[in-house]
C-alpha cells in the first residue's frame, strides 16, 4: 500500500504533546507537510527536528472559561469548547490549505470539534487516551470514598468532550486495547487500536549491560562499580504513577542493601488534577515528612530532565520500577523496556498488555505490600539471572511499540482515509 505524502492539520492543546512526535516522524519519513495548531508549546529545545522544516507550528488563543486559572467541575466542557473555538478562530484567520486530513487529541481540553466548520471535507481522526469511570482506575478506587461528592460527579461528567469527538470523528484511534476497553461498549468496536510508537534512543549501544555497568555516570555523578541502580521515571512524582509505592519499596531496599542507589526522574510537583489531594503540591516532600528516607544520600533526585538524561538513567538502570495505578501505560515504561531494563511493574490490566510476567518483565500484586519489595530484591540479588527479561523487553518494544513499526501502519491508514475521501 502506498504511503503518499499528505497535508495534515494537527490540533492538540499542548505541543509537542502526544501527536508532535508522530507528525515529526511523518514529515521526516513520509514527506508530509503539517500544520500543528496548539494553545501552548514547550520550550524550543523540546521541539522535534522538523519544526519549521515541514511542520509549521501555530499557536491559538483561548477565551472565556479557558482563560480562568481553574474552573468548577461543571464547566469542564465549557472550557473544552473554548479551546475548540479558539482553534477555529485562528484557522479562519490563517486559512491553511490544502488539508487532506485533520488529526486531533483533546486531552481533556478541546481540539478539532469545530475544525470542520472551517474545513468540512477532510476526514477527521481523533486520538483518545482515557475515559473516566466514576470509581475505577487511576486513583478513583482509593480516594473516591473519602472525597467530596463533587469528585465523583466530576468523573461522571468529564467525558463530555470525548463523547462529542467520538461522535463526530471519522476515525477514533486509541493506543492500547486497555484504553479501548475503558470506553462505553457502544464505541469499542469503532476504536482502532494502534500505538503511536516509541522513538529509538539513537544509534544502538551494543556494549553488553554488564560491561556498561562498570563505567556508569548519571547527571555528572559517577556510579561506583558494583553498585546496583534502580530507577523511577515519570512526568511528575505522583501517586498515579505509584511514587508512594516506589518510596516505600526503595526505602526498604536501601535498608536491605548497602550497594544500592535509587535514581528518580520527574517533577516533584503533582501536575495532574486526578490526584485532588496533592495536586500542585510537592509530593516527595509530603512523603519525606510521613516516612523519612533511610539514606537520603542514596536517593538521587534528578528532577524533570531532558530525554537524553532519561536515556542515560535507563541505560544505567539495573531495575526499573513502575508501580503505578491502572492508567494508560507510561511512555517511560516502554522507554525503559526499549533500553533493555529489567522492569518490575504493578500487576494491572494496562501493564499486563505490554509485559508478560516472567518473560518481558515482572509484575507484582500491589495488594500485597511486600510483593514489590520481594520481587525487586530477588532481581537485585541476581542480575544475571534476570538479564534475559530485559533483552526480551527490548525485543517486545522493537517489534510492537517502536515508531518504525507503529507509524508506517498509521501512515497507511491515513493514506487510505485521504484516498477514500478523494474517491480513489
Amino acid at each position, binding site marked *: 500500500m502506498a504511503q503518499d505524502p499528505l497535508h495534515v492539520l494537527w490540533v492538540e492543546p499542548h505541543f509537542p504533546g502526544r501527536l508532535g512526535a508522530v507528525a515529526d516522524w511523518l514529515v521526516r519519513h513520509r514527506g508530509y507537510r503539517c500544520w500543528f495548531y496548539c494553545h501552548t508549546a514547550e520550550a524550543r529545545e523540546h521541539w522535534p527536528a522538523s519544526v519549521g522544516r515541514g511542520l509549521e507550528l501555530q499557536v491559538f488563543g483561548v477565551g*472565556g*472559561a479557558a482563560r480562568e486559572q481553574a474552573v*468548577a*467541575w*461543571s*464547566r469542564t*466542557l*465549557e472550557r473544552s*469548547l*473554548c479551546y475548540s*473555538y479558539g482553534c*477555529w478562530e485562528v484557522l479562519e484567520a490563517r486559512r491553511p490549505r490544502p488539508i487532506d486530513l485533520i488529526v486531533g487529541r483533546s486531552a481533556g481540553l478541546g481540539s478539532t*470539534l*469545530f475544525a*470542520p*466548520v472551517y474545513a468540512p471535507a477532510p476526514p477527521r481522526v481523533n486520538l483518545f487516551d482515557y475515559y473516566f469511570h*466514576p470509581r475505577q482506575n487511576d486513583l478513583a478506587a482509593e480516594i473516591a470514598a473519602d472525597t467530596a*461528592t463533587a469528585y*465523583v*460527579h466530576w468523573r*461522571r*461528567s468529564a*467525558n*463530555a*468532550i470525548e*463523547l*462529542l469527538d467520538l*461522535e*463526530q470523528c471519522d476515525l477514533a484511534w486509541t493506543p492500547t*486495547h*486497555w484504553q479501548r*476497553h475503558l470506553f*462505553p*461498549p*457502544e*464505541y*469499542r*468496536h*469503532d476504536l482502532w487500536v494502534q500505538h503511536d510508537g516509541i522513538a529509538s534512543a539513537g544509534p544502538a549501544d551494543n556494549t553488553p549491560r554488564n560491561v556498561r555497568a562498570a563505567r556508569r555516570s548519571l547527571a555528572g555523578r559517577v556510579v561506583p562499580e558494583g553498585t546496583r541502580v534502580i530507577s523511577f521515571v515519570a512526568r511528575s512524582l505522583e501517586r498515579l504513577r505509584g511514587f508512594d509505592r516506589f518510596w516505600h519499596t526503595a526505602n526498604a531496599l536501601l535498608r536491605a542493601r548497602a550497594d544500592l542507589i535509587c535514581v528518580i526522574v520527574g517533577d516533584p510537583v503533582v501536575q495532574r488534577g486526578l490526584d485532588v489531594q496533592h495536586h500542585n503540591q510537592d509530593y516527595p516532600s509530603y512523603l519525606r515528612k510521613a516516612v523519612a528516607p533511610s539514606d537520603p544520600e542514596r536517593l538521587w533526585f534528578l528532577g524533570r530532565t531532558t530525554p537524553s538524561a532519561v536515556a542515560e538513567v535507563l541505560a544505567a538502570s539495573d531495575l526499573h520500577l513502575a508501580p503505578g495505578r491502572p492508567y494508560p501505560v507510561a511512555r517511560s515504561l516502554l522507554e525503559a523496556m526499549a533500553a533493555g531494563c529489567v522492569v518490575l511493574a504493578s500487576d494491572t*490490566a494496562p501493564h499486563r*498488555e505490554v509485559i508478560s510476567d516472567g518473560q518481558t518483565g515482572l509484575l507484582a500484586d500491589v495488594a500485597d505490600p511486600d510483593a514489590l519489595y520481594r520481587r525487586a530484591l530477588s532481581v537485585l540479588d541476581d542480575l544475571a539471572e534476570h538479564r534475559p527479561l530485559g533483552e526480551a523487553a527490548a525485543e517486545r518494544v522493537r517489534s510492537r511499540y517502536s515508531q518504525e513499526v507503529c507509524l508506517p501502519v498509521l501512515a497507511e491508514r491515513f493514506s487510505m482515509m485521504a484516498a477514500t475521501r478523494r474517491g480513489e
Partner: protein
Amino acid sequence: MHVLFLHDAFPAQFGRLGLELKRCHGWKCSFLVQSLSSCPTPTTEMLESLDLHQLPLSAEHRSSDGIPWPQIFGMYLEQCQTVFDAVRARPNLRPDLVVAHGGRGAPTLFLKDLLDCPIINYCEYYFATSHRDISYRIDLPPAEPAPFFPRCINAPTLASLVDCDAGYSATHWQKQSFPARFHSRIEVHFDGIDTALYRPGPAPRRIGEASLPQGTKVVTFVARGLESIRGFDLFMQVAARICRQRTDVLFVVVGGEEIHYGWDKLHTGSPSFKQWVLSQGDHDLSRFLFLGRILPEHLADILRLSNLHIYLSAPFVVSWSLFNAMATGVPVLASDVPPVREVVENGVNGLVEPLFDIDRLTAVALEVLADPAGFSRLGKAARRTIEETYSIESCIPPIKDFFERVAILGAGDSIKELSRDPSRDRLV
C-alpha cells in the same frame, strides 16, 4: 411497581402515562418536576392522585433564554445535581425504576450513586449538524452560533445515554436520529393521544366571543411556538395566497410567540418571529385569529371546526398537534419530510407536499377547501391511524410491558448488557 418520572415540566410526556399506570394497573408514580406546564396543563385528577415533588428552581433553571451555548452542558450538570440533591433529601423516594426525559439530556447522571434501580431514558431527539431540525432553514439569514451549537448540543444527551439502562423514542424517525451504535438499546413507544378528547364531531360554531358564520371554512395552524422550525412563515405565505383565491376562509392560529428551537431571534433581529413574519407581508389580519396558547379542551373544539389543518414543520420531532388534528378527523396538509411521512401517508390518511413549495401547498389546500366532503375520507383514515397506532389505549400496554422488562432486569443488568456483543468486549 414504583416509577419515578423526571421531566422539567408536568404533565408533558409522562403525566397522562403515569395517571393511566396508576388508574389501570395500581402502580405508584412519582414525579420530580420543576414547573407545571401550560401546554398541556395538568388535570385535577393528575394533581390529586400522582405523587408530585417540586424541584427548587435556580435562576438558571427558570429560563434557558440568554444562556450562552457553551454553558448548556454546565446547566445540565447543575440540573443533575438538583435532581441528585432532591432524591437524597427524600429517603422514602426509592423507586423500582426511573424514567427520565432526555430532550436536553436526562438529568440522571448522578442518580446511580443513590438509587439501585434501572434508569430508562426517553430519547426524544439527537440533533444533527446539518439538513435537519435547527440547521434546516438555510433560507433564513445565518445566525452566528449555527455552525457551532449543533456540534455540542448533544453532549448532555450522550452523557445520559451511555449511562442509562435502556431508552425509548416516540417514533422510529426520532430513534433513527440517534447514532446507529445506540439503536439496539432504544425501543419505539409512542406517548399516546387522548382520543376521547380529540375526536370527530360537532362543535359550537364560535371561537371565543366570535361566532362563525355559516359557510365559513376554517384552516388551522397549531404549534407550541410560532417559529421557523414549525414553518409559521411558510404557512403565512400559503394563507396569503388562499386569501386571494377565497373570501370564505378563516385562519385560526394557535401557539405562543416564544421561540423554543433555533435562532429565530438571531435570524430576524426581532424578539418575536410571529411579528417579524407579519411585518414582512401584506397580510389581511381580519382573516386571522391568533389565539396564543389555549387549553386542550378549547383546542379540541377548534380542531373539530377545522376544514383543513396545515402542518409545515421542518424535519424535527413531530408535534402532538398533528396527531391531535388527525385524531379529530381533520384532513391534514403537511410538509413532505421523513418524520411526517412516518405518520402521514400521502393520499391515504392525509396529504404531503414539499415544505418550501408554496405553489403546490396552496393548490392542494384550495382543492381541499373546494371539496371538503371529497377529502373527508382522509380525515376518517387519519382517525383510524391514531386509534390503531397512536392512541393511549394502543400505546400504554407496550410501554408498561417495556417498563416491566427493564425493571425486572435490574440496574446494570439491562438491555444494554443483553444486547452487547461479548466478542467486542474482549480486552485483547
